[in-house]
């Protein structure tokens, strides 16, 4: 019994110190008026849910929530869609398959600050490659302010983030495809199924568990994306690319109101938790399904 506890202790201590404590601290911090002075004096008056009320009443909250939703949904949809298409494409045998596949990994290997800076150049209104190309092709008359108009900034930042996320989706989905037995496709072809039907009735259902994992991980990554936005726009112009993550950072570390920042952070945790619950429920029901089929 003692040995058992001893064996468990390291992981429990680890979890408590690195997950439990910060979570609890963040939760209690959000209930206090925690400002710059609180750090020194240790006095942070308890204010109940006043921080949440302030945050929810702030016009930026609506903007940030909307931006977070658009950014996350669009990123996930395109990352997954393009990633899946590439994975299916690379399933076929052709020369240089391996080389091309590893080259597509580069965006995933680059530090986000680097890729963010590169995208900043691409999107530059006056001298950016994107505008120069479009101007050269005669598609536009004047440079589009990709990052400096409130209308274009969010789509631009999302595009950069999609680019960053495609390799991850591709690699995991490609792995999932490899585990689908080839004889299923043979059988389907013998039954007269075309490429679309093979995808629809063999690939898609068998890839579902992997897809769920990819989407769930992608959701968590995307909800907390910080570097890309910080490098490209710092949440601006005028909060046009402010997400809950960047807003929490700016409240805490730029306005130095840590109570408010913590409140936003907690809201983000709750949102992620809600999706995690959906995922777990989905996992349980789909885990039951194949067992029954096998019998």
């Amino acid at each position, binding site marked *: 019994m003692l040995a058992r506890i001893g064996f468990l202790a390291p992981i429990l201590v680890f979890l408590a110190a690195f997950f439990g404590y910060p979570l609890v601290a963040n939760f209690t911090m959000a209930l206090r008026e925690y400002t710059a002075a609180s750090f*020194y004096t240790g006095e942070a008056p308890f204010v109940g849910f006043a921080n949440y009320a302030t945050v929810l009443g702030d016009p930026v909250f609506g903007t940030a929530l909307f931006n977070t939703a658009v950014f996350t949904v669009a990123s996930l949809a395109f990352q997954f869609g393009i990633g899946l298409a590439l994975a299916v494409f690379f399933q076929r045998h052709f020369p240089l398959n391996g080389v091309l596949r590893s080259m597509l990994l580069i965006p995933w290997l680059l530090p986000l600050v680097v890729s963010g800076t590169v995208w900043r150049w691409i999107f530059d209104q006056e001298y950016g490659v994107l505008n120069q190309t479009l101007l050269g092709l005669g598609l536009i008359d004047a440079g589009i302010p990709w990052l400096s108009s409130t209308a274009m900034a969010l789509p631009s930042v999302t595009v950069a983030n999609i680019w960053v996320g495609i390799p991850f989706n591709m690699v995991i989905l490609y792995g999932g495809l490899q585990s689908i037995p080839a004889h299923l496709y043979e059988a389907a072809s013998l039954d007269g199924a075309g490429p679309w039907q093979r995808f629809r009735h063999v690939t898609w259902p068998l890839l579902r568990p992997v897809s769920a994992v990819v989407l769930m991980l992608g959701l968590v990554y995307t909800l907390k994306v910080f570097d890309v936005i910080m490098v490209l726009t710092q949440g*601006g112009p*005028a909060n046009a690319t402010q997400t809950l993550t960047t807003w929490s950072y700016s409240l805490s570390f730029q306005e130095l109101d840590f109570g408010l920042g913590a409140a936003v952070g907690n809201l983000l945790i709750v949102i992620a938790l809600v999706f995690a619950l959906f995922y777990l429920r989905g996992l349980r029901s789909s885990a039951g399904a194949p067992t029954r089929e096998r019998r």
Partner: protein
Amino acid sequence: MTSPTTRRAYILRGSSALVAAGLLTLTSACAGGGGSEEVTSLTAMDYNLAEPQNGTTKKMLQQCGEQAGVEINRNALPRDQLMPRLLQGASQQELPDLMLLDNPNLPQIAATGALLPLEEAGFDTEGYYDSVLKVGTHEDTLYGLAAGVNGLALFTDTAKLEEAGVEPPQTWDELRDAAKKLTQGDTNGFAFSAIGHEEGTWTFEPFLWSNGATLTELDSPEAVEALQLWSDMVEEGSVSQSVVNWSQADVNDQFLGGRAAMMINGSWQIPVLDEQDVDYEVVPLPVPEAGADPATPMGGEVWAIARNGEEREQKAVEVLQCLLNEPNMREWAELNAYVPAKEGLAQQVAEENPQMAPFVESVPTARSRTAKLGEQYPDVSSAIADAIQQALAGSGSAEEALSQAQQAVPES
């Protein structure tokens, strides 16, 4: 069956040894802090990472430390990490003995009660500009002193202005005209930083203030008029809309690259520009009507001392007095293009270096950004930056943007 158990035991023993080692380092770290033995070392923190400030800060701290008989461990951090780091230190009652703070941040640290009142500690404020003392003051007590200060002025590309036959503008109307005429091909007539934080706000403040508006009434017609000027110039194409993403360093790059004929920037860009061999001129910022005072915000960092016990404080005071002595003040100003904090010295600098003259001129009327708002300033600053961006990059009008910003102003 025995081998896994032994391995387990090893792991356990190993991990407990690690924990013990960790505890030991913790206790020894704690013991190092206090004590009333003679002080042999002090800590200092600043964000002067760029040259030449970095080298100058390092050298001066070392020299002044030697003079006071202490070793100074300097820690230089990126600008945006300094405040969080200081607060982290404050939570363990361990602030660096000497810290160089951006002046609008001073009230926040001062409000914690962690700083040493400098006049009580024996600092003589004779000869300092009043406006310089004001930015180091929180609730009538002086906590911070600057060796040099900086401000904003208009930099003009001499060749481009001559080519277009334009004189450096003095009023808003002239500025708008000049910017329009200077906008040709790849070149924008005018550039400034309108980035979404303090850098953008402080660039806008001279326009706000010189038009008679205040930081507490952002929705006043005077304030709206000032923002309207900026937004009109963007609309007319004399200013690139990208300014909403440009820091002051980016603006300087645009100017250096010949992509902007005029810019608003700080005196600290002078060494950078001189290195690059561009022909430029510096004039005071344009004002709404001829003859009005260009009300620029006071920029620059102030040194502050933490309350770390009498012995340490005493040494820190000695070091700071050395940092602020006249030869050092002069050297700092010369190397980094700052205006010396003492009026007499500043006058000499203006005479020797005409490019510094507009900055020296602006010091007496330069305003403290935090005088009215104190520790509330960051909230309001960020609201103003949002309003600027809204007006320049969004669809909202200057009036709507500023009336939204007004909501961030605390009622008093």
